[in-house]
């Protein structure tokens, strides 16, 4: 018994204090991966069965629905790309560098229940796919959490709702920065350390602020559901409903590093093509303005009208 107590205490200390212990832990986690995949087998099996039992009609319906969805999303993506390019150009004008797009990798949840007091999940990608500690994890709607521990074939992800997790955010409406922490299973997230007079309202969207350098900028974290000001307390109590579907998402995305788009390198080639096309007629028009007041292109009408008084003076 004494031996067991001593060994446990030694393990506590080693696990908590020593960084050298991490590879050991990761190796052990690899060793228990078979147990975890064994536990997720029943769910996978029932999924497989329900896949097999789907009839043709259902599948056809789903395909049509998904195709329609893909089409609308493609259209939206085109607009997004145009906006992104515009945004990049504007930011370039301001001289600020900015990370635009992250590459993501799809991972699947291993359906394993861990301790209900920790909000952790296991995913089926590990070191062999280059997953690293602290890697941000998203689902289709927002931020889910970050990778806490990596083993060879799997990794453990801490969800936003874990009491030990905090994420830097900002309010979309006014850019107010704050920190959101988890409060455990089934509880809403909480915005910490905002004074009573902070400008935050019910319905405000919170996105990642990118401060701290761990999460990429601008991914939705959640929406404010209630704001109360308990008298006698220094900070407001603000509850946030997570944007990600933490309990139902099966597929999630790991954000890959090293995809910083450098503006000075990438923008000119993208920009050079449209710029002469839009700029030359505009310059021509300014030059020709005294003679021709009518612009042929409705898009160019605005700058043309603006330049009229300056040229007139």
């Amino acid at each position, binding site marked *: 018994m004494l031996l*067991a107590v001593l060994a*446990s205490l030694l393990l506590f200390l080693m696990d908590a204090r020593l960084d050298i212990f991490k590879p050991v832990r990761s190796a052990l986690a690899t060793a228990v991966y078979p*147990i975890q995949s064994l536990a997720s087998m029943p769910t996978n099996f029932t999924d497989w069965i329900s896949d097999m039992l789907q009839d043709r009609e259902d599948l056809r319906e789903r395909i049509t629905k998904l195709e329609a969805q893909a089409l609308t999303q493609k259209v939206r993506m085109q607009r997004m790309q145009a906006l992104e390019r515009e945004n990049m150009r504007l930011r370039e004008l301001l001289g600020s560098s900015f990370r635009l797009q992250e590459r993501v990798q799809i991972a699947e949840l291993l359906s*394993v229940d861990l301790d209900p007091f920790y909000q952790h999940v*296991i995913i089926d990608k590990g070191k062999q796919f280059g997953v690293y500690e602290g890697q941000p994890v998203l689902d289709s709607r927002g931020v889910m959490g970050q990778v806490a*521990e990596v083993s060879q074939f799997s990794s453990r992800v801490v969800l936003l709702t874990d*009491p030990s997790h905090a994420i830097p955010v900002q309010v979309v409406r006014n850019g107010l920065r704050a920190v959101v922490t988890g409060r455990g299973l089934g509880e809403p997230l909480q915005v910490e350390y905002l004074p009573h007079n902070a400008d935050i309202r019910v319905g405000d969207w919170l996105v990642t602020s990118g401060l701290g350098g761990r999460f990429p900028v601008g991914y939705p974290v959640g929406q404010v559901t209630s704001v109360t000001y308990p008298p006698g307390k220094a900070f407001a109590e603000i509850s946030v409903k997570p944007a990600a579907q933490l309990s139902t998402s099966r597929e999630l995305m790991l954000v890959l590093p090293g995809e910083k788009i450098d503006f000075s390198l990438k923008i000119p080639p993208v920009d050079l093509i449209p710029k002469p096309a839009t700029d030359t007629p505009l310059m021509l028009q300014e030059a020709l303005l005294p003679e021709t007041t009518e612009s042929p292109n409705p898009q160019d009408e605005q700058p043309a009208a603006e330049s009229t008084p300056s040229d007139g003076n």
Partner: protein
Amino acid sequence: MAINSRSQQTWVIYVTLLIAIVLMILPLPDLLRQARPEFVVMTLIYWAMALPQRVSIGVAWFTGLVMDITTGVQMGVHAFAYAMAIYLVARFHLQLRQYPLWQQAFTILSLVFLVHLVSMLNASMTSSWHIWMPAVVSTLLWPFVYAVLRKIRRNFQVS
């Protein structure tokens, strides 16, 4: 032959422990998650009671370590809790064997509660009555687990 059959018998113990660990991480609906009985503790207690020379603090500690890694909590938490519970069982296994089943079940209640409390020391979130759920459910399930494990022990003649 004798060595071969003996190794096979201990193998049965480890298989039941493995099944218990798998049952501990099997996905359940959110409502039942909080009430998951401590299968591993119950299995360990049974074996420690029936065969104290085979399953004792060492095995319990090692099983706890496997649990720590599978559930991803700080290392040594489950190991410590299991070793403590099995220490008590090993100490009093002769008395425990004499108890009627319902009285054993109450021993399980206290032991599981103890284990659960220790393994939760690290978790910051606790809501009051949820703490009792695993212990109570384990107690209710004890006669069933006991019967199943006894059946296994007799079938495979583990000794």
